[in-house]
């Protein structure tokens, strides 16, 4: 629940806002370093998600009762857990699960949000008024609360976790899509297209939608990171994927018990999430800046 993408402010970078040029020159070198670092992290996590076997030395589920709570060492770089499982292998294998949940949640959130946002942005006054209301109501359930309610109702599992996070992030996206559609719809270039006599369908598909969705790509980058953090928070509370499955949130939950005795059980999955989401943020910002300086004004 760190305050990432769905903050209302970020949610509505309407086309009309004043351009925020940043001084780019002095920081270019540093930026590109941060960009490449972030890209490498994201690439590694993707590799871990696709082919964990390449990175992980051990079976994430195999216990070794004699080796419980081994501190980080050459044999176990992230140490071992209470059953002697290799934490590093579990972190690597957890990438797939966590990423899938993050992506799935973002997809769910986006699909819902786009439906709502388009309805509000393109439907009539009444539709817009109702959509605004719905978004407002959803906003009144702060993130995790909505997720928890869904879990209370449907029980904890990877799927509910995904849906819960997706629904929880939806209002932010929806508000953005709606704002964006309205801004684009009211823009001069859409009026020009109308003045040219283009059909509504053509204006919608060629002008409104592509322009309204442009900032979404950047937001998805930020959103996936956020979704992973949310999902991990649910996992941390024991309401996500259940042990012994390797998943970052579930590992955090398991590690919490032994925090005084085996800090590495929580520290490493946690720092992985931090570094990964931070990298996504950095990448997202680079994309955003590229988009800002490239196409829009």
């Amino acid at each position, binding site marked *: 629940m760190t305050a*990432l993408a769905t903050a209302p*402010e970020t949610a509505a970078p309407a086309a009309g806002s004043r351009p925020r040029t940043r001084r780019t020159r002095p920081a270019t070198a540093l930026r590109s370093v941060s960009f490449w670092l972030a890209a490498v992290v994201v690439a590694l996590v993707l590799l871990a998600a696709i082919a964990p076997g390449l990175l992980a030395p051990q079976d994430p589920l195999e216990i070794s009762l004699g080796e419980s709570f081994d501190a980080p060492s050459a044999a176990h770089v992230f140490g071992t857990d209470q059953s002697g499982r290799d934490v590093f292998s579990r972190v690597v294998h957890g990438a797939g699960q966590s990423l899938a949940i993050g992506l799935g949640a973002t997809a769910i959130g986006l699909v819902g949000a786009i439906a709502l946002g388009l309805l509000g942005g393109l439907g009539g006054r009444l539709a817009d008024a109702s959509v605004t209301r719905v978004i407002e109501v959803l906003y009144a359930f702060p993130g995790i609360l909505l997720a928890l309610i869904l879990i209370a109702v449907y029980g904890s599992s990877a799927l509910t976790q995904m849906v819960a996070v997706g629904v929880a992030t939806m209002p932010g996206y929806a508000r953005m899509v709606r704002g964006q559609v309205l801004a684009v719809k009211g823009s001069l270039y859409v009026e020009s297209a109308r003045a040219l006599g283009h059909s509504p369908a053509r204006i919608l598909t060629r002008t409104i939608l592509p322009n309204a969705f442009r900032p979404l790509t950047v937001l998805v980058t930020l959103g996936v990171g956020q979704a992973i953090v949310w999902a991990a928070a649910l996992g941390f509370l024991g309401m996500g994927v259940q042990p012994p499955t390797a998943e970052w949130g579930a590992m955090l939950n398991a590690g919490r018990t032994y925090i005084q005795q085996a800090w590495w059980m929580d520290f490493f999955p946690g720092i992985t999430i931090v570094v990964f989401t931070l990298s996504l943020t950095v990448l997202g910002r680079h994309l955003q800046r590229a988009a800002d300086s490239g196409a829009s004004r």
Partner: protein
Amino acid sequence: MTAETAIAPSGPRPALLARLRASLGGRIALRILSALVLLWAVATIVFFLQHLVPGDPALAILGGASANPPPETVAAVRAQYGFDQPLLAQYADFLGGLVRGDLGSSYTMKEPVARIIAEQIVPTLQLTGASLAIAWAIAIGSTLLTAARPGLAARIGSGLEVVLAALPHFWLGVVLLVVFAVTLHWLPVVDDGPAGLVLPALTLGVPLGGFLAQVTRDEFDAASRQPFVLSALSRGTRPRDVRWRHVLRHAALPGIALSGWGLGSLISGAVVVEVIFSRQGIGQVLVTAVTSQDLPLVIGVTFVVALVYVIANILTDLAAVAVDPRLRTSIGGAS
């Protein structure tokens, strides 16, 4: 500037609304009305969600480690809680209760939900309040120290903010706990007093502070490029004064507007933080209620949190107006 001449009298239809909007009091009344509608919607949604729960709520009520309820008991419980009535009757009951401030009775704690929440909301509000203060301190401190300054300072400041904003509560909290309480013994692990508030409030406040700082910094940068800044300088005002008197107010605006939302996110965060630090509060109650499927309690917490959110938003609106008098006409504008 001559446009005032072309005002035609309004038709009768929007008269009431228009008259309401015309005065500040009216706009506040509208705002409150729309807040009530919002609360009703929240209550309705959670009520019907509750009925999607698979299984028998009576069993949840009679649950517990060693429960073995005979069928008669289960039936008695059903009757007691009205589960045998039609859904709409239950809904009417529920709404009626809400109006009277009665949120029903907790399944597991066998106590009125309203009373449980009334007790637990206080520490949570203390926590979120302290966190919000910390967040603002970070945002303003970082902005004033590093924003719109040449050289390394701004880059370090903004880099740090990104990192802070990316710290998840569950991780930051555990790290702070292990380092400062368990290892260094600087602060207590649990404490009801102010000392015990430090780590949880930091855990919650720091990431939000990083986020707010990004927003205020952006706005500060933008505002400090505005002509009125140069204008002030041209009158002989000190640069430091300009930062404080002019730019900071502008920079604070989006942050203030976000604070209502921020409070919501803090309550979300409190769920995790209260669990980590074993603090009393609504978050703990919610987690327990969810794990034990104590739905009246879940609904109650949700409703109260929505209420807090609504109130917080009204307050932030007012705060924003205090800082930006231009907004006076926009209260209640959304409705």
